[in-house]
């Protein structure tokens, strides 16, 4: 129940004229919100409809012309097979899964150290991590691509997924550590002290107490990180050089530069890219919004 709706009800006007004005105001609100709903739905809906229309129809009439509605899944078949989007989809999964699990593990470990292990300069080190939160990834690109290639030419990191996994993981650390540490620190100290007295070491405390009670926080961060990587183009542009390993974002960007007006392919491709985030959004909306709000400072 909203805070604002209550006083409105309390302040209901008593004269017929006042009631008419109130009704008019209420319909104005519905009109405005309806318009907003349309503006935010129609562009995506238009592309969705287009992704199921035959190429010749798309060239002939607008998608809004429902008298010309013939639906087909040929566009998807073509973009998945002939345009390699199926491979790109698999590549995106290959990039996104390790780039989510690795940060989850490493951030949880570090966040535990910053909350419950005693060592000198702990808070100073943590402030340095906070300082790294907003450092633009661009400051790391040139040396990562050039010197490391010169230093370790045999590693060929950018030809596989190694570079993009490690880069995604490293760049995720400041935020992940910050977020999880702020959660871990709120856990009751008695719980950890009691385990210490019972003789549990840090590894045991971490795996058997901290992680199990922090599942919601870790999940919210995991979803945020997964979608961040799934949707990323920039890092893939820099760190994935082998075109057979391109994720969907790069494949679509290539489609766009090669066939800028082949909307039957572009629309289907864009929806293949969107489908997983949309499923995550609708099924895990709560975690998703939480993660995103917490991630807003990234």
């Amino acid at each position: 129940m909203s805070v604002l709706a209550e006083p409105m009800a309390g302040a209901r006007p008593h004269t017929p004229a006042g009631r008419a004005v109130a009704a008019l105001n209420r319909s104005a609100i519905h009109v405005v919100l309806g318009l907003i709903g349309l503006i935010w739905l129609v562009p995506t809906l238009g592309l969705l409809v287009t992704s199921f229309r035959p190429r010749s129809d798309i060239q002939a009439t607008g998608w809004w012309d429902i008298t010309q509605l013939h639906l087909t899944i040929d566009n998807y078949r073509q973009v998945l097979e002939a345009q390699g989007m199926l491979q790109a989809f698999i590549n995106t999964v290959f990039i996104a899964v390790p780039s989510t699990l690795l940060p989850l593990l490493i951030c949880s470990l570090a966040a535990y150290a910053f909350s419950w292990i005693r060592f000198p300069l702990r808070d100073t080190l943590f402030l340095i991590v906070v300082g790294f939160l907003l450092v633009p990834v661009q400051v790391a690109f040139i040396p990562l691509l050039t010197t490391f290639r010169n230093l370790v030419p045999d590693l060929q990191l950018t030809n596989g997924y190694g570079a993009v996994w490690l880069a995604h993981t490293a760049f995720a650390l400041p935020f992940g550590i910050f977020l999880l540490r702020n959660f871990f620190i709120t856990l009751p100290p008695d719980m950890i002290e009691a385990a210490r007295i019972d003789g549990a070491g840090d590894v045991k405390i971490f795996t058997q107490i901290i992680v199990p009670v922090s599942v919601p926080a870790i999940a919210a961060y995991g979803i945020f990180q997964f979608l961040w990587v799934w949707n990323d183009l920039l890092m893939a542009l820099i760190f994935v050089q082998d075109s057979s390993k391109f994720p969907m974002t790069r494949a679509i960007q290539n489609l766009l530069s090669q066939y800028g007006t082949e909307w039957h392919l572009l629309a289907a491709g864009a929806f293949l890219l969107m489908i997983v985030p949309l499923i995550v959004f609708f099924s895990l909306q709560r975690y998703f919004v939480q993660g995103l709000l917490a991630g807003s400072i990234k």
Partner: protein
Amino acid sequence: MGLAPTPAIPAARRDLTTVRRARGPEAPQWGSAILFLLPAALLLTIFLLYPAIYTVLLSFNRGRGGVFDEWVGLDNYTRLFSDPDFINLGTFPPSGALWNNVLWIVFYTSIVIFLGLIIAVVAARVRYESVIKAIVFIPMAIAATALAVIWKFVYSPDSNIGLLNAILGAFGISPVSWLGDEHIVNFALIGVGIWGSVGFATVILSAAVKSIPGEIIESARVEGASERQVFFRIILPMVSLPMSVLAVTLIVNVIKLFDLIYVMTAGGPGKASRVIAFTMYQQAFSAGQYGYGAAVAVVMLALLIPIILFNVRRFRTQAVT
């Protein structure tokens, strides 16, 4: 919330403390600290700290091939700031990548916050509030690459394909080349950015508006305040803090903005829609001007440093109190 977990040990728990002392956890737990921090420390050093220092140094170098070859002092920076493609204040309106970021900051930030607040306040009065918020929030889940495809489609100059030109056509207006006209392109892109971010602002501001105690608004109404007064005198001042945090977040987004521009226009037509992060990528990785590209990256960092320092300070004061 404090940084130190147990500031003082109560007297009643002294027995417990003695046990702990005997076991020694008051001393630094070096083994555990190293075990838990090593992976993060290694990755941060190799992938962020070292490269950042390298990039700052490289920005004072010619940097052919990305290595230190020729020290050039501030040359990259003087070239950068005299490059009309980066910043050109000599014409009206000014132009260049950095100027486009200014346009983004001014229009994108203010309109996102304005629309977010309006939707948050207005939607709170209807039953289908959560539906409206979800619809507006959906673009936040979608990749900038997909947003770019959606809106390239809407903006298509062909009025059989582009919805916007079809609507103009219905009113007898000839098609507009939204992304092809250098005077329009930045505003067309900012429009897409706004569409993508309003949901985020709505969710944040809606939470802020709802945290205002109902009695405050109620008593203002009892005192005879109009809806307008309630909005401007109570709601607006009480959400000003979350609003300023939101503004800072949006400005950071703008400084890092890349994917949308790269996919929608590749900085074009010509160089009209370039932004600073695009220029960095283009100079370093397309033109191979590593020293120059490093200077652009350092400018990005410099723009963010005030916000970084502010964050660290805010966090430190929280730790002290």
